[in-house]
């Protein structure tokens, strides 16, 4: 790819855009696979929220931990997970990341210190804080990041975790991906006081709200929070404000928000916004932009082919990884 004049060779924005495009293509591919029955119907896509994932992950180094939510695909891609093995997991293949035992919401990759997505809203915050605690014993400054949701800020575990993480000065960053809706419930019915970032002060930690559709802005806020954690300054709360253009999940029958509201959000689509800015500033050409899009599509075509062409996980796999110890009482019954 030849960069046009006016763009620095290290223009991080192109890297951020490239990853956002891959996430978008992944989600579109995954949606297509669910429609064709290759993968199960239950899937939570993150179309429209790509900037949060890429901005957060661009601030991390390899040893840092990441815990994610049920809407984890974008976080996985941004962290560097392989779309082939992600789709293979969704499609119940042996080569899926979780050996066909976790599915879409549990995608994890230990080699990237990616603790996994999670079915339970709010669960990620405690797990990330625990990983941060372990890091303090090791030394070395690794931090943990919890991706969570505005819905999670109403849970008990969110409250307990932020309080205790602050008391123990843990190197953890809590990223609330505020996409404005928990299924059909808008944020004004979820968050008393309407300001999630402001809650940080109540936990004795810094809080910041950021435009979650601007990956550079997210990255800048994250760098501050991660540096703080890494240098022993304790936890932070980052509220990344975005919008859930996607339905809650593939079975969502809608009816709870205006089309006009969703259309307005599409105008603020992070990929659209960044692409137009880069074109305007001469940092990228249309050819290069098209090439980036084609690259993402090609990666996903190959990933879908891989997933569909690889073997289904063997039933013998189903009864493994329940325990590590061979407990004498654990006779796992076989399913016929």
């Amino acid at each position: 790819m030849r960069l046009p004049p006016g763009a620095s060779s290290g223009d991080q924005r192109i890297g951020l855009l490239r990853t956002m495009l891959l996430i978008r293509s992944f989600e579109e591919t995954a949606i297509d696979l669910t429609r064709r029955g290759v993968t199960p119907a239950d899937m939570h896509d993150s179309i429209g929220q790509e900037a949060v994932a890429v901005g957060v992950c661009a601030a991390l180094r390899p040893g840092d931990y990441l815990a994610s939510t049920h809407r984890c695909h974008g976080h996985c891609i941004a962290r560097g997970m392989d779309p082939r093995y992600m789709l293979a997991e969704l499609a119940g293949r042996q080569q899926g990341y979780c050996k066909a035992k976790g599915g879409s919401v549990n995608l994890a990759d230990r080699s990237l210190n990616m603790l996994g997505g999670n079915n339970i809203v709010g669960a990620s915050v405690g797990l990330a804080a625990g990983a941060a605690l372990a890091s303090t014993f090791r030394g070395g400054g690794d931090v943990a990041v919890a991706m969570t949701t505005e819905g999670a800020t109403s849970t008990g575990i969110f409250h307990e975790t932020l309080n205790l993480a602050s008391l123990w000065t843990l190197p953890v960053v809590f990223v609330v991906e505020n996409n404005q809706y928990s299924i059909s419930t808008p944020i004004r019915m979820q968050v008393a006081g309407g300001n999630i970032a402001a809650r940080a002060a109540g936990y004795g930690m810094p809080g910041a709200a950021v435009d979650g559709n601007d990956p550079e802005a997210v990255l800048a806020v994250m760098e501050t929070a991660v540096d703080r954690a890494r240098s022993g300054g304790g936890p932070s709360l980052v509220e990344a404000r975005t919008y859930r253009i996607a339905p809650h999940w593939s079975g969502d029958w809608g009816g709870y928000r205006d089309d006009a509201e969703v259309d307005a959000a599409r105008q603020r689509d992070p990929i659209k916004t960044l692409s137009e800015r880069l074109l305007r500033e001469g940092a990228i050409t249309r050819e290069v932009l098209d090439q980036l899009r084609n690259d993402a599509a090609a990666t996903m075509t190959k990933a879908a082919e891989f997933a569909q062409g690889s073997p289904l996980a063997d039933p013998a796999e189903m009864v493994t990884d329940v325990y590590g110890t061979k407990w004498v009482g654990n006779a796992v019954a076989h399913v016929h």
Partner: protein
Amino acid sequence: MSTVRSGWGMPSLTFTEALRHALRDEMIADPAVVLWGEDIGRFGGAYGVTKGLYAEFGPLRVRDTPISEAAMVSFGVGAAMAGLRPVVEVMFTAVLTLATEVLLNQAAKTRYRTGGQWYAPLTVRARCGARPGAGPVTGESYVNVFSGVPGLVVMAPGTPDGAYRLLRAAIRSDDPVVFLEHGALYNTRGEVAAEDGGYTGQARVLRSGRDVTLVALTAMVPQALAAAEQLVAEGIDVEVIDPSTIFPCDMETISGSAKRTGRLVIAQDWPLFGGIAAEIAAQVHAVADLRVPAVRIGPPMIPFPSAVHFGRSVLPTAGSIADGVRSVMLMAG
């Protein structure tokens, strides 16, 4: 496997002392073993189990927490995934329920749902068990709530020796363990043998016998042993088994015994519906031709009543267990 010992031989220890030795020996052997819980630091824990550990190991490895059971256990899962071996003390099982989501969905499933990439070597200790005067919340054990969840281990030793060996095994295991310490056992005393590292859930035959297999859960162990002694005079020879690990339960040892004796009695001190006693009865009946149907002894299906005389009347005793054994001996067959 650690061979570090506290410098004692085969003394007689209380259940509490055995637990404390187990924690200490594991903390000496492995710097990854870290404790947290409410009041476990300078105070030494609500039941005194961790006395002295704060002074010896300091505030980073022995931490007091606020009242946050869900976070306490969740931090435990995350820290365990990231390389520590946390031992979290939750004051009693009625408040362990505040961490039920974390135990059942997070701790139990970490290994399976990540295809074996991550796992959670976490131990969560909690007092369980009724005692007269306890009442409908603190007197509950809720063993059923935590048992039978694939991926989660539930241990409930009945002797000081079991307490020492099982707690060390729980900490060393790479699986998440709910470790139940019945309050009525804390002051019981017994010989504690060297820990040999071979414990993988075996039930313990505490007394060999010919006529009837008597399975006793946690605090029923001393009662069952006393009942067995009472019955010697009547020519009834009772085999007493302490499963020690409730889930996964060593059914092979229990079934093997029941096949030989032909009679099975199970005693627990929490209400009988579902749960380990029912499971043992069902599984043994499936593989063994018993002379008579298995008998389960336990409190009625009521919340535990607070009045002391109520509590005494519903809890099994050595006497009521002996009556249960006599009844199966008398049944035709």
